[in-house]
């Protein structure tokens, strides 16, 4: 199963850099990069923090890919 996300698009919509978002949620930029790239699945706590900063719900920001739903 793979978790995809739309962080990059919503971050761009708000004109936030990875560094800006990282500072807002209290993590390093590499962490945001790894989550965006799908290399790291964040904890529920971090997922909620990111979603809150981007003004989204967690289920709008993260979703299981089509393959994962089968």
């Amino acid at each position: 199963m793979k978790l995809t996300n739309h962080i990059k698009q919503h971050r761009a919509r708000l004109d936030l850099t990875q560094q800006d978002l990282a500072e807002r949620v209290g993590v390093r930029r590499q962490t945001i990069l790894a989550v965006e790239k799908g290399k790291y699945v964040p904890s529920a706590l971090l997922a909620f923090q990111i979603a809150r900063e981007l003004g989204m719900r967690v289920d709008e920001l993260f979703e299981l890919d089509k393959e994962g739903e089968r």
Partner: protein
Amino acid sequence: MMSHAMGRKLPSIDWIALGIGVVGLVLSRVQSPGFGSWLGLLGLAVFGPPLLRELGWLQDEDEYVRNIRWRAGFHAAMFAGVAIFLNWVARGFYINHPEALHQKLWLFPMNDLRQNLVVIYLVSFLIQYWGAPRGVFRILLGMAGVLVLDFGMGLAQGGNRFGTMLLPALGFMALFLGFMLAGAWLARRRPQFAGRMILALAVALVVLQALALRTLPPAEETMGWLGMVLGMVSSLISVGMVFAILGGSLLKSEGSDESEE
């Protein structure tokens, strides 16, 4: 709860650790050729801050960094397992050379094993933290710097006799250095190609070392000879393994550089 911001800069303790590590690395090369006892400072630098974090005395890392730190530790532990296994595989050699056992001349002496654990942990952590292209680029530049420092110290400390002995190796070192710098440059631009090139370099090191071993006269199997053979095989595995990790991580990476904003 991650309540404080961790900006682009490293926390101050990591800067202190980096300073201690660099001093330890330089002193280990300057004080004695090869890994000297000063490398202990590198161990302190690499494992000191994580130890404080693991004990909960330092709470400045986020969940992703903790995750890759644990993975790097796991990789180091796997290496230790492989090294112990290789010592067991080499038992036939020790049966034929029981004097090596008496002198505790192991394929992976404990000192080498400890130093390799530090190196594997560090390489694994940095590649995961920076991403393969940027990580390999910086690690190869660091290794090239250590190589130049080693060679320079050898020439400076050894006097004319040692210097004359090292001069024939100058061509080989220049070639090796050229490969490392080319690998570093390509790692961020063409990671797949650089990965294959670095893996080829790892294989070439194995072949060259094997050829060097074949040139040793078997009739002179003294303790010095045994120590040299085991030392060569051990360093070959260590250096070859680091290159294999660097090359393999580049082959697995996606894109030319993972550090986009």
